[in-house]
């Protein structure tokens, strides 16, 4: 029994550390506020003038996409940042504690989810000023969807971080993985515009379903249908958690 309660305290310890560090790194918080404003105002209003999306205005259309962008990038980078902890030996001190790798992994994932939820609140507040209103139910559903999505994305980032040997691969990660995942997700334009191989890529891209769910919740129009997308998200989260934990437990220290 003693061991079990220690595991929970240990998970809390790892999460607590991540949370403090997030609060302390003001540039991260500032960019979490500035970046969505720029996208929504400049991109949404500017480009939106020359784009027409059936049934809604462009700014409302990309709102879900921008929300996803904020936590997609923060979750994946947060996870992959593990490689940096490895390099500066911070991780060694944690790995040498009696905590199981699984507990450390879960604590880290919860840290990533917390940061995503904070970012989500910021984006929703910005949305409110831009005229995007939410019912309480929609807000709760949004948080739920973001939490699940960011569990999967953080786990995926941690998997990458576990396997990477040095932080030099970061640039490659964002060019080869992050940007394609974001642009091929229907975040900025309807995926019905895509055809052929691009449409196929979009349909196996987990981010597509994350965007679709949130757009469904926030604007009421979902491409695949809420249930379909929610199922896809659950599968992604489960697979990413399993793969991430597998890689983390086998990581060399």
């Amino acid at each position, binding site marked *: 029994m*003693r061991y079990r*309660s*220690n595991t929970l*305290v*240990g998970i*809390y*310890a*790892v999460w*607590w*550390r991540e949370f*403090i*560090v997030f609060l*302390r*790194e003001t540039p991260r918080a500032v960019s979490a506020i500035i970046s969505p404003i720029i996208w929504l105002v400049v991109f949404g209003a500017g480009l939106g003038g020359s784009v027409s999306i059936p049934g809604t205005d462009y700014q409302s259309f990309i709102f879900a996409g921008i929300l996803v962008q904020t936590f997609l990038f923060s979750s994946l980078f947060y996870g992959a940042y593990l490689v940096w902890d490895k390099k*500066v*030996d*911070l991780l*060694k*001190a*944690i*790995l*040498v*504690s*009696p*905590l*199981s790798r699984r507990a450390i992994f879960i604590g880290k994932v919860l840290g990533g989810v917390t940061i995503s939820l904070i970012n989500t609140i910021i984006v929703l507040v910005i949305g409110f000023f831009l005229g995007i209103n939410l019912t309480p139910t929609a807000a709760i559903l949004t948080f739920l969807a973001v939490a699940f999505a960011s569990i999967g994305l953080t786990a995926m980032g941690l998997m990458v971080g576990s396997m990477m040997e040095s932080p030099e691969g970061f640039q490659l990660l964002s060019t080869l993985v992050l940007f394609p995942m974001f642009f091929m997700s229907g975040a900025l334009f309807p995926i019905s515009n895509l055809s052929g191989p691009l449409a196929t890529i979009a349909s196996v891209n987990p981010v597509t379903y994350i965007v679709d769910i949130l757009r469904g919740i926030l604007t009421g129009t979902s491409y695949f249908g809420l249930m379909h997308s929610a199922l896809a998200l659950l599968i992604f989260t489960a697979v990413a958690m399993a793969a991430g934990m597998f890689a983390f437990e086998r990581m060399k*220290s």
Partner: protein
Amino acid sequence: MPVIKTENLTKIYKGTVKALDNFSIGIEEGEIFGLLGPNGAGKTTTIKILATLLDPSSGKATVNGFDVATHPSKVRESIGIVFQEPSTDELLTGYENLKLHALMYGIPGSETEKRISDALELVELVDRKKDIVKTYSGGMRRRLEIARGLLHRPKVMFLDEPTLGLDPRGRDTMWNYVERLVKERDMTILLTTHYMEEADKLADRICIIDRGKAVAIDTPAKLKKVIGGDLVTIKAPLADIDAIKRLKFVKSIEHKDGAILITMDDAASNLQELLKRTGKVKCVEVRSPTLDDVFLRYTGRGLEQAEGGLFDKIIQESANKA
């Protein structure tokens, strides 16, 4: 029963590099045990295996009676570590670092504050506890690591090159703490170092490690006795070597770079007698043996020479290629 025991521990990296080669030691409770050897001798590999951060290729190791291979989390509960590279979290304050550690090790909440303030007091960081570690000096970080390593009251403390990169003052302070730890906390300490001075000053027993092998294990005094006396170096071109050899107190004699190296008993009383036989002397140097001499005796190289080993190898390899 030894607190730490290794039997024929061997670690081979990437199938070819033998970092540890049938390494066997036993460390008794309450002693400061020094692993002395040049960089790359296998010191850090030993610590990593004992800390369950690395699996051995073969052989066995136990810490506090637990096998590192089969009971890693029991081993981890028994040990505290001060790593060679600082591993404190520099974005957290000193206090927060200790708090995090207390949570991870499941220290009861009711005891946490008391233990943290005790540990901070021991390493004299109480007045800096609310500062972010980024603002600490190298010596302060190392001290914070010691405080952290103590928090869960481990049976054994590993200090991996604890004074590497510290200035002489920081080094003195660190030595002080280590000695106090043993006295006040009744701990067993495994210390790795490539400073012979440090091993000599701190360790009760020393294992000289070279190329992954335990070359000699004993107290510093006994190890130095192996040399067999004081070391006298003389530059005397006209010296009668045979006459010197016949002196009773002379143990050995050899020529090196135009100088005569003599190992002899009690140089303080016998030097006069020696100088009578050497004729005109250009210069004399008398000294007691150091661990460096011991290292030289066992490995055929001085510690500093051995440090340069890798570099020499690289130069040689590039020379071979050219």
